[in-house]
């Protein structure tokens, strides 16, 4: 009936070879399945679904009187380093027709090139077509880095 432990060497060799290939195959399969699962479980760079805070760079990146526009999720945010050494972050989307605003150092205002809209450094719309002030963001300095997050 059973020929376990058969003496035929070729048959044994072939079976051992097959067994070896089998273990190889199983290992390969294991890797091919485990690799995607492990990669999946590794936290992606953008940790959360909705972006709630962004590192905007180092403290020295923005000198006094200068500004920088960063990407917060899919929206632009403008960070201004004011004369009295404070950092202010505001939405850089003009409330009129969604152009990107810029900081005008000489007039000390935020200006929109599209239709001459003007905002003060608190985001309040002071002149031109913008109907609403700019949304405010929170800026926190941590370990020499500027961290911008949504206003509570």
């Amino acid at each position: 009936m059973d020929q376990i432990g058969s003496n035929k060497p070729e048959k044994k060799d072939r079976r051992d070879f097959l067994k070896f290939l089998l273990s190889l195959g199983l290992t390969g399969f294991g890797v091919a399945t485990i690799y995607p699962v492990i990669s999946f479980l590794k936290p992606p760079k953008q940790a959360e679904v909705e972006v709630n805070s962004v590192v905007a760079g180092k403290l020295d990146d923005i000198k006094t009187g200068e500004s920088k526009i960063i990407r917060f999720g899919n929206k632009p945010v403008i960070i201004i380093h004011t004369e009295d050494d404070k950092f202010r972050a505001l939405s850089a989307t003009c409330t009129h027709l969604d152009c990107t605003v810029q900081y005008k150092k000489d007039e000390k205002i935020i200006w929109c090139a599209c239709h001459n809209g003007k905002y003060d450094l608190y985001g309040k719309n002071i002149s031109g077509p913008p109907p609403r002030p700019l949304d405010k963001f929170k800026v926190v300095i941590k370990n020499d880095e500027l961290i911008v997050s949504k206003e509570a």
Partner: protein
Amino acid sequence: MKLIPGFKLIISVLTLILVQYSYASEDQCFNCHRDLEDNPSKLFVEDVHYKVGLSCSSCHGGNSNSDDMELAMNKSAGFIGVPSLNKISEACSKCHSDAVFMKKYNKNILTGQFEKLKTSVHGKLSVNGRGMMLQCTTCHNAHGIKKVTDSRSPVYPTNVPATCNKCHGDASFMQSYNPSLSVDQLTKYRTSVHGILNAKGNTKTAECASCHGSHDIFSAKDVRSKVYKLNIPNTCSQCHSNKDYMKDFPIPTDQFEKYQKSVHGVAVFEKQDLSAPVCNDCHGNHAATPPGIESISKVCGSCHALNAELFSASPHKKAFDEKKYPECETCHGNHEILIAKDKLIGVEEGAICLKCHAEDKNQKGYRVAKIMRSQIDSLMSLDIVAKNLIFQAEQKGMDVEEIKFKLREIHQARLETRTIVHSFNEAKFKEVTNKGFKASEMAITEAKASIDEFYFRRYGLVVALALITFLIVIIFLYIRKIEKTKSV
């Protein structure tokens, strides 16, 4: 009766004497005061109330039949003396608010004036805190009241400005009530078309009450006011849209109709947008005059600053001034300013440029117009292409956040082209459109790469499939092997 001869004669004489007597005794107050030759009685002779047979007691109370001062001017007879503060207006409104009573004298006269005055801005407390700011007599006078249609009345159209100016032109007086309110309205008014006509004696033209109302005057910031921003077009059009009324004046009457269709009109009437201009924003209010040809871009430019600046530096400024073309109005209209669509620019049918430029006339401008339009169109189609590709990539599950960010740049460039057009300068225009082209190229490239990456995954799959298939084959062989050595 026929017994006494001349009876008829005696009766008539007696009646006459009786009538004379009673007539003479009708208003004893007036008789006495007239004999005293005091001012009120002098004025009262010309008063409309005297002319319809009312006596002093109608307002002051008392018994007008008695010539005895003690009896006539007696409190028990209802005498109130010289009324002060609100008692004045209350005395007037005793009759003037009684519709039934007033009908006897004048079928058409209004009777709601006192109520209106009380709720109006003039009905607020005076600085003395004891009565309304204005009483009826402030504007209508006390004893020599004339009909509104009487040219001697202080509220006759040609006299109204002076009447209002009595308070409103007095800086120290107005200071106690509203320091920020200007006091030069009359001066300004006299420079306006309305003011000039009014000074000449024209009663149809607008004066203070035409726009502000008479008894129901509210502050311009009050939504109930006829001169509240959003109500102004209606107020002006009450005369200016009335063909019959305006037939004496050589100006059109379709401005309001046109304005309603315009961008500004839609903003005011449908969106209640307080930042949109109404009649007085371009024409002025007290100094109302349409802006002059050369100053139109300055007026429009008070809001549309960038466009005006660009226009003034462009070759069109000199050309338009020479030809006496009214700047902005030439292309955009004045009252019926519609949304500036892309088709205004260019050399296709419907483009404004064609009015002056053609292939064989003013060629340089023709060329620039053609280029501008084709660039605008290219940018628009690139925007659409980019948006479609990004949507595709997103639906396939690719990460498109960064690429979407680029779309903002395209959108911005498209908006900026609308403004830079007013420079009518090819180089400056291309600066803006190039920004847009660059951004759209980048967006399209990145979106395409994203989609390619999606398809590339399929190749990664082949590796995994090969591994698994290999394993499958091995197992299959293994099974065969086992079953050969074992009997089943």
